[in-house]
């Protein structure tokens, strides 16, 4: 099967999306960008391939869906089990790499023993906690291995270090050196194996499927036997120059977001993308061609990173900010969108006795005000309007945006795709498909 891959290297997350020959989305993957874009790109692509396989498994099982009480439920259970397998696999890998990195000559022999003890303790606890993280309905602060394993490693590690009279920095150092190595170990072959293991587990806990076991296994095998031929890859985003592609395979994220939004909503004329480090206001014509754009200039104030900073300041997860702000009961006006000032603004307001939900709503509005200015400089808002990027997943930001659009432009259809974070990658994959057509 011919595949067309789009990779969007963002400052915060890296996204990959795979299209088939009919330009249908086969799969999507996301990972955090970290400092190494090469790894981020390959992990995102692997994730997209995993997602593609799950979708292919779905397609393969659909004709025999009557075998299942609820196919979707089965599939989501399968994915969760697979994710747990994958997590455990990576955890084992991380543990072994950590042990190797902690046994070098850099450490004194007594230290080595204590570190090894601490590592055993940490990983034992991590393994114990893992099933709960992937249980049905479980909420995780992040879906990325680095984040989940990292935050728990740090928390458990700190306690263990104290207990064992060890410097926490040593443990931290071992982790930092090991995590990058581990993130690069994962491959498609492993995924197939893990998926089959996950399936076996699922079948074990679903006795009513026991009699149909062979058919199901065969169907899943079939899905995995489809050869995915990577016909063309297009990269976009800030890190695009780092991609190991030739220039022909690289496109500006402005064009990718414009085209991606057009593919999602063909009536789109104005696109707003708020990413980690930049905000883009884009006008597109009826065929998805960019006719004008504006980006934030002097600084990244008013971008997604601003929310990340606020989340850090408040010691909550990034995805918790929106829901908290939605609980606001009164309006707090905040005009500064300087990320550095935001912390001070926050503390100042808290000291004045403002509720943090209200302050958060004010901060969300401040970001959107910046975006409104960019939008007007790019040519305003024309119907339909499509909002993309990570911040589009934030309900408080969306509410502020809709309010300001209504105030300034009247009735406008506002499109927000649940997968809007993949807009750039979708545009890139579409460019990849078009490039192949041109070459044909």
């Amino acid at each position, binding site marked *: 099967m011919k595949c067309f891959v789009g990779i969007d290297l963002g400052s915060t997350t890296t996204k990959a999306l795979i299209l088939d020959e009919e330009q249908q989305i086969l799969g999507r993957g996301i990972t955090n960008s970290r400092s190494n874009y090469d790894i981020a790109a390959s992990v995102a692509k692997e994730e997209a391939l995993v997602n593609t396989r799950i979708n292919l498994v779905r397609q393969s099982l659909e004709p025999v869906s009557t075998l299942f009480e609820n196919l979707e439920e089965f599939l989501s259970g399968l994915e969760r089990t697979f994710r747990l397998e994958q997590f455990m696999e990576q955890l084992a890998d991380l543990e072994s790499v950590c042990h190797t990195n902690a046994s070098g000559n850099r450490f004194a022999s007594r230290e080595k023993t204590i570190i090894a003890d601490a590592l055993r303790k940490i990983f034992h606890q991590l393994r114990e906690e893992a099933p709960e993280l992937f249980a049905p309905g479980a909420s995780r602060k992040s879906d990325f291995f680095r984040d989940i394993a990292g935050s728990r490693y740090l928390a458990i590690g700190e306690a263990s270090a104290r207990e064992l009279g060890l410097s926490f920095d040593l443990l931290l150092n071992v982790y930092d050196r090991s995590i990058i190595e581990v993130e690069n170990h994962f491959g498609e072959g492993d995924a197939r194996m893990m998926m089959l293991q996950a399936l076996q587990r699922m079948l074990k806990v679903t006795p009513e499927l026991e009699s149909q076991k062979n058919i199901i296994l065969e169907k899943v095998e079939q899905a995995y036997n489809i050869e995915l031929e990577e016909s063309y890859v297009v990269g976009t985003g800030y890190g695009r120059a780092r991609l190991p592609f030739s220039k022909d395979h690289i496109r500006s994220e402005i*064009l990718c977001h414009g085209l991606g939004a057009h593919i999602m909503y063909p009536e789109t004329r104005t696109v707003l993308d708020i990413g980690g480090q930049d905000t883009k206001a884009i006008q597109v014509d009826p065929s998805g061609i*960019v006719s004008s754009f504006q980006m934030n200039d002097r600084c990244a104030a008013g971008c997604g990173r601003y929310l990340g900073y606020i989340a850090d300041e408040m010691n909550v997860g990034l995805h918790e900010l929106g829901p908290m702000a939605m609980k606001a009961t009164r309006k707090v006006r905040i005009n500064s969108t300087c990320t550095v000032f935001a912390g001070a603004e926050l503390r100042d307001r808290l000291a004045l006795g403002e509720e943090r939900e209200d302050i958060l709503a004010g901060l969300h509005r401040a970001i959107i005000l910046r975006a409104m200015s960019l939008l007007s400089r790019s040519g305003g808002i024309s119907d339909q309007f499509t909002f993309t990027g990570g911040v589009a997943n934030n309900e408080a930001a969306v509410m502020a945006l809709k309010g300001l659009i209504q105030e300034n432009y009247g009735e406008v259809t506002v499109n927000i795709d649940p997968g809007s974070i993949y807009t750039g990658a979708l545009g890139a994959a579409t460019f990849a498909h078009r490039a192949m057509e041109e070459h044909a």
Partner: protein
Amino acid sequence: MSQMTPPDAIKEDSMEKQKQMISANFHELAQAPQQGRKVVSTFVPGNINELLMCFDMARNLPEINALQNGMRKKTGRMIMEAERSGHSEDVCTYVKADLGMMAQGNIGPTGETLPKPDLLLLSYTGCFTFMKWFELVREQYDCETSMLHIPYQGDGTINENMRDYVVKQLREEVIPTLERVSGVKFDIDRLREYMRESAKSEEDLVWVLQTAKNRPSPIDAYFGGVYYIGPIFTAFRGTEDASEYYRTLRSEIAERLEKGEGPITPDGEMKDEKYRLVVEGPPNWTSFREFWKMFYEEGAVVVASTYTKVGGVYDFGFRHDPDHPLESMADYCLGCYTNLNLPSRAEMLSNYVEDYQADGLLINSIKSCNSFSAGQLLLLREVEKRTGKPGAFIETDLVDPRYFSGANVKNRLESYFQMINQKRGGGFSEGVAA
């Protein structure tokens, strides 16, 4: 308005000539006090160089000092020096670089000390900052000031009253002041002679700039253009040296044109012309090469720019006229690009896009320039509307290195080039770079 050290790769005779002229002028300035010559400081737009030469005065151009220092990476420290003495972050960075340079001993770009001016001649009033700038310099040096008020072309035309008003000021205020400060009597025939020379240079410069109408263009009318305007925008207009420079330049460009060659860049000839742009706004000086590279690496050539018109618009027929010296001087000052109203600028830019077969208009807006950045977005929209060609907007600064965000600018430029390509209906197969 540039007189800069030519990039190493460019070794044309005209470049060598310009380089010598520039060092000679800085040397002349440094020597002026010992030689009993009077020094006048004045600005590039609307400069009345021919008249100043009639009084044997050495000409100092603070904007040029700032940009020369910018190219030599010296302005960052100068600006901080000025900020230490109380000038805010948003003040024009030419001003701060100049004041910082003065505070650090007034060592000019070539290492020679610049003299104290005997006269501050403000011959163009369209930039309000110029006036404030000289106020600050006057406070420092306690020297004489003369102002030639240039009425703004509010309705897009120059009428008799405006011309008479400028001529009257020249006769009654500027010339008598120059006579008094320099001790030299005004001789109108001398002025006519200089103007005759000016017209020759103007003719050749226009010819050179208009070669960009060809495909491929043998010149880059912005990054190369700032070199070409060096002599005529500054202390050399009206000199035989300038006439010789432009004669040489013209023959060099004629040769390139005949051979069908593209423009020279610091990395050699740009061979594959993919995009033709019209640019509004000055270049960034502190990262000039890096900025230029973002264009030529992608095969983008600037075929016309308005920045090369701020020290005089010659391409619509105006020439200094020895038969009507004061009147043509008035017309020159009134006709500078910076003195045009927004509709005239929009028309000029739209015509450039059409006449030079450009793919669109790019605006490089200057963060610290409050006078000329205003209305630029409006210009962009208007030109887009009139020509149907896509425009783009980037922001940098003149000489404050902190305001040049390379990754950001590159990102926007690449997006713009791809946008042009997409509009043409082209795709990857055309080999258009990202």
